[in-house]
């Protein structure tokens, strides 16, 4: 049967099980959008390509499936790059399809032409420029396979318009042909044995779990290991939800804005068991003084992550789920009373805390109320900055894929579009974007998308009138010289929500916080909550950049 390239693309996507495609049309993708018009694929039209990418990313993080986005050439593709880089840094499975000018015009500086392969090379796991329609089914299959296996990541398919218009009746085989790509799944049994011996012999072990726990779906195995061997667990920002924070073994998050007890535990440990984490500088602080007494086990799917930043004693390369399953068999319970007494002391003396005695609305209080109102069962997306850290501190995450945030790249404007993808992927769930007044304005236009698609996404703006995290650094390290961080002309977010056809609430009083959250949650459509919070509240504890992670300021008393 003769098919166009556009039809081939849609059929192959459907074969891959794709349900949603996020994007925005444009000139060279007209043939694709014409084919989409009569296809069962559900297309989510965003108002900016960056948002389409983040929505595909949020969909992927919430569901574990590959997120798919489709945009036009040139500016469409360049607008998408922030979203691709965000997905790359956090190892999110994503296939990004970009239109490209006609094959014979490539390189001629044609209208809306950009070298997408060149621009996206450092921010993709792999990329393809389709030059022959007959290769298209194989390329799509390979893209999905590469994106979703090994260390996941975004794959770009750059698709010239003539390829989508050509027809073929003899496509080449669709089988994947990747001799250079063989991700390792099972860990080396000898390394696993060494790891279990180290665990059994340790007095002061700590599990340090990252986003790999979520990606590999191994939070249950992590819990079993921690409980069987009796080991406290700290997670990175990306690992939140990978271990129940309600467990007595939980230390919460570590690193720059980690809890005091997590950071002290890591610094005092004699064995650090890193699982699916990459020793990012926001986690390690001053690297020479990170976990100075600890032997380090590193379980990771990416061999290049091993000993990249920190010298590892026992590397185990492979899928965390497979390795943890093996490891659980070999470890035994140890009481470690002295160790847990010490940790309990830190927990008692240095809990996460804030002063809630005044009249003003504290951002931490808003997060606590959201946690209680949703009984910890919502999907929380965040923007980047103080809002992200308060969400990480004061919402107790207990299930994987319930905390969705841009960790590695730290992309402001991520949370709201990501919430769109998460809501579509998990239609029955409450999805809340915790935002700041700065970052929400970076993709505010997506209010049109949520209204258009009737998505009940809730936005909680912690509105302090500042680019708060930068202001905090200026307060602490730049003599309160608030250079360009005051946002004095914020819009009226309630009116803005209403202008788009959404519901809006403004809260400037502590007693109205909870009733407003409850009311917002009871509304079936999108709601913007503008919480006027204490303007100069800081995120504590905090490790100043470049210091050892037990050199925290704030939150110690």
């Amino acid at each position, binding site marked *: 049967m003769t098919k166009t390239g556009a039809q081939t693309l849609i059929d192959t996507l459907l074969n891959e099980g794709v349900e949603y495609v996020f994007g925005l049309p444009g000139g060279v993708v007209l043939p694709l959008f014409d084919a989409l018009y009569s296809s069962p694929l559900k297309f989510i039209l965003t108002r900016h390509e960056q948002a389409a990418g983040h929505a595909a990313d949020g969909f992927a993080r919430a569901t574990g499936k590959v997120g798919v986005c489709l945009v036009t050439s040139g500016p469409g593709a360049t607008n998408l790059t922030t979203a691709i880089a965000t997905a790359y840094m956090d190892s999110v499975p994503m296939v990004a399809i970009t239109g490209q000018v006609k094959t014979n015009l490539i390189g001629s500086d044609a209208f809306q032409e950009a070298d997408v392969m060149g621009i996206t090379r450092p921010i993709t*796991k792999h990329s393809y420029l389709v030059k022959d329609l007959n290769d298209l089914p194989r390329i799509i299959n390979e893209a999905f396979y590469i994106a979703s296996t090994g260390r996941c990541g975004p794959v770009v398919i750059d698709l010239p318009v003539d390829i989508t218009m050509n027809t073929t009746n003899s496509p080449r085989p669709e089988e994947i042909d990747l001799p*250079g790509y063989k991700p390792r799944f099972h860990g080396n049994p000898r390394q696993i044995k060494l790891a279990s011996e180290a665990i059994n012999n340790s007095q002061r072990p700590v599990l340090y779990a990252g986003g790999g726990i979520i990606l590999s779906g191994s939070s249950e195995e992590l819990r079993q290991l921690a409980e069987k061997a009796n080991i406290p667990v700290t997670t990175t920002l990306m690992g939140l939800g990978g271990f129940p924070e309600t467990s007595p073994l939980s230390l919460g998050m570590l690193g720059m804005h980690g809890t005091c007890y997590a950071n002290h535990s890591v610094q005092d440990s004699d064995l650090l068991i890193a699982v699916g984490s990459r020793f990012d500088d926001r986690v390690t602080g001053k690297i020479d003084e990170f976990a100075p007494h600890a032997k380090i086990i590193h379980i990771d799917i990416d061999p290049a992550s091993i000993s990249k930043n920190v010298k590892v004693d026992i590397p185990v390369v492979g899928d965390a789920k497979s390795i943890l399953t093996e490891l659980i068999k070999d470890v035994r319970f140890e009481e470690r009373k002295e160790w847990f007494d010490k940790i309990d002391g830190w927990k008692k003396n240095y809990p996460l805390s804030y002063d809630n005695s005044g009249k003003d609305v504290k951002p931490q209080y808003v997060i606590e109320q959201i946690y209680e109102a949703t009984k910890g069962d919502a999907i929380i997306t965040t923007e980047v900055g103080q809002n992200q850290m308060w969400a990480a501190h004061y919402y107790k995450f207990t299930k994987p894929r319930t905390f969705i945030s841009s960790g590695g790249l730290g992309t402001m404007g991520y949370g709201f579009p990501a919430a769109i993808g998460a809501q579509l992927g998990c239609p029955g769930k409450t999805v809340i974007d915790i935002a700041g007044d700065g970052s929400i304005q970076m993709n505010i236009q997506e209010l049109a998308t949520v209204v258009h698609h009737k998505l009940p996404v809730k936005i909680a703006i912690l509105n302090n009138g500042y680019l708060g995290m930068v202001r905090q650094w200026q307060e602490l390290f730049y003599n309160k010289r608030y250079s360009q961080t005051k946002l004095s002309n914020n819009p009226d977010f309630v009116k803005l929500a209403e202008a788009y056809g959404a519901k809006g609430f403004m809260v400037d009083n502590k007693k109205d916080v909870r009733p407003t959250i409850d009311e917002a949650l009871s509304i079936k459509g999108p709601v913007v909550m503008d919480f006027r919070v204490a303007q100069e509240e800081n995120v504590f504890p905090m490790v100043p950049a470049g210091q050892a992670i037990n050199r925290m300021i704030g939150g110690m008393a």
Partner: protein
Amino acid sequence: MKHTITAIVENKVGVLVRIAGLFSSRGFNIDSLNVGTTENPELSRLTLVVKGDAAVLEQVRKQLGKVIDVIKVTDITDKPYVERDLMLVKINVPPGKRGEVLEVVNIFRGKIVDVGPKDMIVELSGTEDKVEAMLELLRPYGIKETARTGQIAMIRGTK
């Protein structure tokens, strides 16, 4: 320390850009990079000479291995291997000096591949040291141009 790394890569559009880009974005320093086809037209062989300590070299190997089009990466520095660097050099040959130049070229078993009234082109292949040594001896006559392949290398024997 200098390391010689060979990689078998798929002969696809953009593979060289991926590798060169990887080196620049990760801050690795390449002394030389050579790419050529192999006996299998679908594969190319890359020879890289890289400077760095053990940790850097480990990252170079692993990051190269992560490139989807790269099939196999081998650091052959500690293995018995044959290395060659091919050079073409155009030398200024003043009148009366041709004999001297020829003598140097012969000692190094170079080949004269072109002779002009005032210059000649010499072809020389060998280890980098040998090529450098001849170049040093020819330098006083005036080197007009050089072109080098960079090192290519292969492990000895069969595995």
